């Protein structure tokens, strides 16, 4: 310790107080202060605030109290059997339930309030004027949620280790359940940060807060159910297949958490920045992760055999991917095609950049192409590769119907994206011609209205055609995606000939009508997109470049070096 630390605090001069506050009192303080420079400033700020907040103190204290109470109660209720019974699972269930409250309920709400209060209290403006990037702000908020989670986990860590010693629970299950809770906590925290970034009015904040609570309760129940299932069916959960599914599930959840954070960062970024491209990369990456999940699952299914499971897995992932691109696309159709000078500086300039990255440029036109091609690409790649492999290996004839059905289904789903999102874009272009502002909410609502209109039009038309007595699927019912897909799904026959790919002529004509209408809308939109993709990069002014390189040079200097 330094001499000043030993001096009477009441006798310290102002200079001494300032020195201690800034430089730290002991050598350890100084090391910590120096070390903290590598941390996100938001994390440092929020940690300081949390340490002085009543919420954190109460949660921390209650967690200790409930953990101790459960330990005493569980031990007391199982005495004297606790010496020889395998009660680890029962104890663990109690600890996990206690842990779920702060991690699933408290932490996401704190993250929500942390972000919402910045916007509500006006502190966000001063924050945004600093050199912190929007990414640093949202990741800083998430880091604080992670730090709190680590603190709460550390309270329960000795108790969880104790449950393993009590026997009756495997290390794999403990690890898996803790991983699930950690990932769920991060996902909910990221969701709450995004919702808080959207909610700029008090009414929206209250609404989202209520929605968050409902979502958290559902997540609580879901995780509680998985935890209790994990206890009772430990053997089933420790198979390679279970690990694979869990890996895919957690991967998708984490990738969505990342997407939410990218969205939140874009929402708080400055107006002239390119807020669209980073979000598009995240949307694309999530789509790819879902596709990779499919491939991994199918590879696992192939090694275990069984066509029904294989078909089911393909369907689950294809529909997940379809919903992902459909919902993301519905928002993106409202993007303005006017790109600021600042954003134009970051557009791809090289030949390969122009070819492969133009679809990530801001604007509804490139977004439309990205959605349709982004959905279609991985599946065409996957089915193409597997079919080619089957032909090479000489086993294609056996799976011809299944292969064709998969191809046609993917094309149908892509046609739905092309049709409904394309119609949304065309209508928005007609309504808001030459308007600069983005209309994300309008685009999302309009897509929803169009789909609902398609559903009701087919239902009403079908009823009317059948004298309001019954409903039979007909070719024009392709406008109703849910009916069409249920017809497709109910068609489970696997025949080795092309004639049997469609179970009925109506289904065939519906498919044909869908593909034709989707293609027409797609080509109209593609032509209209030409204007958007013609926008090229502008050079960064030399003075701006010089300023940016100056900043890099400053960053390379050791900050602690004596001048």
């Amino acid at each position, binding site marked *: 310790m330094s001499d000043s630390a030993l001096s009477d605090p009441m006798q310290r001069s102002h200079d001494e107080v300032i020195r201690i506050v800034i430089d730290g009192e002991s050598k350890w303080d100084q090391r910590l202060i120096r070390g903290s420079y590598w941390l996100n400033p938001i994390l440092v*700020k929020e940690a300081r605030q949390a340490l002085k907040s009543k919420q954190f103190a109460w949660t921390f204290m209650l967690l200790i109290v409930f953990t101790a109470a459960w330990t005493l109660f569980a031990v007391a209720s199982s005495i004297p059997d606790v010496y020889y019974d395998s009660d680890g699972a029962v104890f663990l269930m109690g600890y996990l339930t206690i842990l779920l409250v702060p991690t699933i309920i408290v932490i996401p709400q704190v993250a929500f309030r942390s972000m919402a209060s910045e916007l509500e209290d006006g502190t966000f*403006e001063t924050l945004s*004027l600093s050199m912190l990037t929007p990414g640093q702000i949202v990741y800083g908020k998430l880091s604080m949620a992670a730090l709190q989670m680590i603190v709460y986990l550390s309270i329960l860590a000795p108790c969880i280790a104790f449950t393993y010693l009590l026997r009756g629970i495997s290390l794999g299950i403990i690890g898996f359940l803790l991983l699930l809770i950690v990932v769920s906590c991060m996902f909910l925290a990221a969701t709450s940060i995004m919702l808080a970034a959207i909610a700029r009015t008090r009414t929206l904040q209250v609404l989202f807060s209520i929605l968050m609570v409902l979502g958290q309760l559902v997540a609580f129940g879901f995780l509680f159910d998985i935890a209790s299932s994990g206890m009772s069916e430990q053997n089933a959960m420790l198979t390679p297949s279970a690990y694979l599914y869990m890996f895919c599930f957690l991967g998708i959840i984490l990738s969505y958490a990342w997407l939410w954070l990218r969205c939140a960062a874009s929402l708080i970024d400055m107006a*002239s920045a390119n807020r669209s491209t980073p979000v598009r990369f995240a949307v694309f990456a999530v789509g790819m992760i879902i596709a990779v999940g499919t491939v991994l699952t199918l590879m696992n299914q192939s090694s275990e055999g069984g066509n029904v499971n294989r078909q089911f897995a393909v369907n689950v992932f294809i529909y997940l991917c379809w919903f992902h691109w459909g919902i993301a696309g519905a928002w993106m159709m409202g993007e303005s095609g006017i790109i600021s000078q*600042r954003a134009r500086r970051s557009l791809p300039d090289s030949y390969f950049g122009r070819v492969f990255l133009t679809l990530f440029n801001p604007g509804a036109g490139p977004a439309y192409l990205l959605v349709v091609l982004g959905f279609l690409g991985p599946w065409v790649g996957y089915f193409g590769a597997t079919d080619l492999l089957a032909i090479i290996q000489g086993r294609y004839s056996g799976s011809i119907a299944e292969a064709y059905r998969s191809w046609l289904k993917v094309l149908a789903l892509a046609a739905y994206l092309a049709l409904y999102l394309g119609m949304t874009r065309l209508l928005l272009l007609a309504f808001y011609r030459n308007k600069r502002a983005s209309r994300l909410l309008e685009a999302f609502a309009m897509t929803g209205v169009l789909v609902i209109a398609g559903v009701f039009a087919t239902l009403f038309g079908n009823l009317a055609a059948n004298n309001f007595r019954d409903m039979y699927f007909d070719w024009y019912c392709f406008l109703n995606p849910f009916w069409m897909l249920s017809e497709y799904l109910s068609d489970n026959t696997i025949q080795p000939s092309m004639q049997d790919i469609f179970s009925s002529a109506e289904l065939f004509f519906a498919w044909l009508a869908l593909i034709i209408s989707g293609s027409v809308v797609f080509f109209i939109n593609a032509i209209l997109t030409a204007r958007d993709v013609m926008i090229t990069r502008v050079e960064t002014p030399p003075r701006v470049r010089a300023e940016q390189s100056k900043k890099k040079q400053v960053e390379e200097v*050791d900050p602690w070096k004596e001048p």
Partner: protein
Amino acid sequence: MNVHVAQAEPVIELRRVHRFFNQTKAVNDVSFDVYRGQVFGFIGPNGAGKTTTMRILATLDSPSYGDALVDGFSVVNDPDLVRRRLGFMPDGSSLYANMNCVEYLDFFARSYGLVGRERNDALRRTLSFTGLDKIASKSITGLSKGMRQRLSLGRAMIHRPSVLILDEPANGLDPRARIELRHLIRQLASEGTTVLVSSHILTELAEMCDQVGIIERGELLAVGSVAEIYNSMQAASQVRMRLLGRVEEFLGVLATREEVSSVQRKGDWIQLELRGDDAAQASLLRWIVSSGFDVLEYVSHRESLEDVFMKVTTGAVQ
């Protein structure tokens, strides 16, 4: 008061800035320049467009048309570079709870990328400059309004910006705190910082500003030093004088002078309203003395910023 070098590049340039909120023209074609080390007072009634203009300069809002430059960087195209050079203290700026003064300043020092010794020096300098060093470890929640304003000012200047934008910094402060704040602002300007400040307290602005801009209904009505605005308006100045005898004769002769627009006698005092600038007034005084009139007292009343403001603005709101 600092006098800018005419050849120097302006640090703040507003070029035909417009900001529309639907049909409301919050800022309508506003242009002016501010030079290094100047204090520019921005005055206008409530809803005139002062805060909107300041927010555009601070990159918190975008102009519907036009551009503003800070140190040559556009607030539209290079807001990140503008932010590095800028400190902004919004009206009624809120501070974080559960922190003390030094933690608050430390957070912003980190946020502005100050590390190591640079950050330590910045903290020491800011605490000392704002007079917060005596309460560095005091919680923000317990600070008085004046101290909170000082802390906000400290936050805005921690990274040594070349431009400071202060929106109503004296709001809610007691007289002593106002005077202290005024001194702080003048000190910053003397160190080379360009300050753009808005306030409702016009006497205060008149004392510390090198230039003022008067804005109403989004339009900049006048810009320049108080004297320049006064002269440009060609407003009358008032003179009160007392003579030792020959008053009637003096009144008769005075009526023939071109620069005198009106003469009134109020007891021993003669009240004149004069046209023209300071030179015209000096010429008149020289003539009176050379004509042999014995002047006992001579009081020239220069119109204050308040008078100018009242003449320039109409009080209309949109």
